[in-house]
Structure formats: structure tokens, C-alpha cells
């Protein structure tokens, strides 16, 4: 209710409740803290201006806000040209690392995908990171990792299932 009235209290509530989570996601997409803070500001402005139109039947508020944060952060990443650069490097790094006989864990480490959830299989971690935090499509993931599209999707499913197990403990 406070949110719909767009009151100051409403903002404070929203920020305290979701600020850290949204910032965490944004910062995982854009590493640079100043950019992450700028994105967080854009995200809150967007949430604030659209909260009256937010359709409770369409899904949960949290998911709605997460999607806004992720999309804004990925837009920022793309606008900086980092994603294209990153894409080529990622592909090359993984391919050359694999060719050099490195294990997947080491290969992903070289592109900064480490330090994710403990216990999450490295190949799942890679898929989640590329899709959710780097904005890769199924097709791009398939080409980058040189695995079939169907495998990308089943791996995504397995990744979410493993995350579910880890977090339900």
C-alpha cells in the first residue's frame, strides 16, 4: 500500500528490503562498483515509476524487481562494450584452455566465474553465470561452450536443481 502511494516510507521500505539483493545481482554483472551504484539508482527509479503498474497477478514482486535489476545491469554491460569483448575472450579462453588440457574449473577461473556457490558443479556455475549474469542466449552459450542447445537447457535444469538442494539445507 505504501508502495502504491509512492511515499518516502514506501521507498525506505523497498530499499531496505531489496537494496542489497538488487545491488548484489547488479554487482555480479558489472564488476565496477561505481557503475553498479549507477545501475542501482536507475533500477530504483524504474521500480518507483512503474510500481503502480506492477501487476500482482503476473508474478511476484521480488522476481519482477530482480528482472529489472538484471536487465538494467546487462544493458550497462553491453553499452560499455564489455560484453562483446568478454564474449570473444570467454570463448577463446575456454577453447584454448580446454585445448591446453586445463580443467573446466581452471578455465572458468581465468574468466572470473569463480567464487560462486560452494558445492555447485563448475559446469553448472558456468552456465548460470553466462546466462543470468552475462546475458548470453541459449544459442550463444551453445556456441561458446560447443555443446548442443538441448544440453545447455538440461544443464540449466540440473543447475537449478542443485541450487535448490544447496539452499534447502
Amino acid at each position: 500500500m505504501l508502495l502504491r502511494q509512492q511515499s518516502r516510507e514506501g521507498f525506505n521500505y523497498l530499499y531496505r528490503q531489496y537494496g542489497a539483493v538488487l545491488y548484489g545481482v547488479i554487482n555480479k554483472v558489472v564488476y565496477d562498483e561505481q557503475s553498479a551504484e549507477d545501475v542501482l539508482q536507475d533500477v530504483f527509479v524504474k521500480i518507483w515509476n512503474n510500481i503502480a503498474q506492477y501487476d500482482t497477478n503476473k508474478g511476484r514482486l521480488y522476481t519482477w524487481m530482480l528482472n529489472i535489476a538484471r536487465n538494467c545491469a546487462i544493458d550497462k554491460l553491453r553499452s560499455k562494450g564489455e560484453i562483446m569483448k568478454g564474449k570473444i575472450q570467454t570463448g577463446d579462453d575456454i577453447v584454448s584452455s580446454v585445448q591446453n588440457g586445463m580443467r573446466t574449473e581452471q578455465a572458468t577461473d581465468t574468466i572470473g566465474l569463480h567464487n560462486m556457490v560452494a558445492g555447485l558443479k563448475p559446469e553448472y556455475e558456468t552456465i548460470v553465470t553466462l546466462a543470468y549474469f552475462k546475458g548470453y542466449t541459449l544459442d550463444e552459450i551453445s556456441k561458446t561452450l560447443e555443446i548442443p542447445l538441448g544440453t545447455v537447457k538440461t544443464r540449466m535444469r540440473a543447475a537449478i536443481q542443485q541450487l535448490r538442494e544447496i539452499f534447502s539445507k
Partner: protein
Amino acid sequence: MNTAEYIRSGNLEAYALGALSAKEACEVSSAVAMYPDLAKELMEIETTMQLFTTWLAKQPPAGTEERILGGL
């Protein structure tokens, strides 16, 4: 539609991870609106993503709240 097969395919996870094209995402949301089994599964996937993102939470730098509020 065979919803069990659809669930097994990983389409819903690909959707939740934002890896689908606009057209594919639209197809998934229509399917979810039509089949309660899919809606239930997507809800669970989203719950997992919420737990995951909560785990990632990071406090923004001090003063950010005021700065944002000032810009609204």
C-alpha cells in the same frame, strides 16, 4: 502438451535465467499461463533464484539510499 516432458527439457529454467529470445520467452509464458503444472514448476524455479540472489546480497555503499531518494 506433455508437461512432464516440457519440464524435463529445461525450457522453464532457460526462461528464468533470461536466456531465451523475446519470441521464445513469449511462448514459455503462454504455456505457463495455460498449464498449472508448468506454473507450479516455474514458481519453484523462481523461489530457488530468490534464495540464490539473496545469498549474493551485498550492501550498497553508504549514502546510496539518500542519493537515490534525492533523484526520485
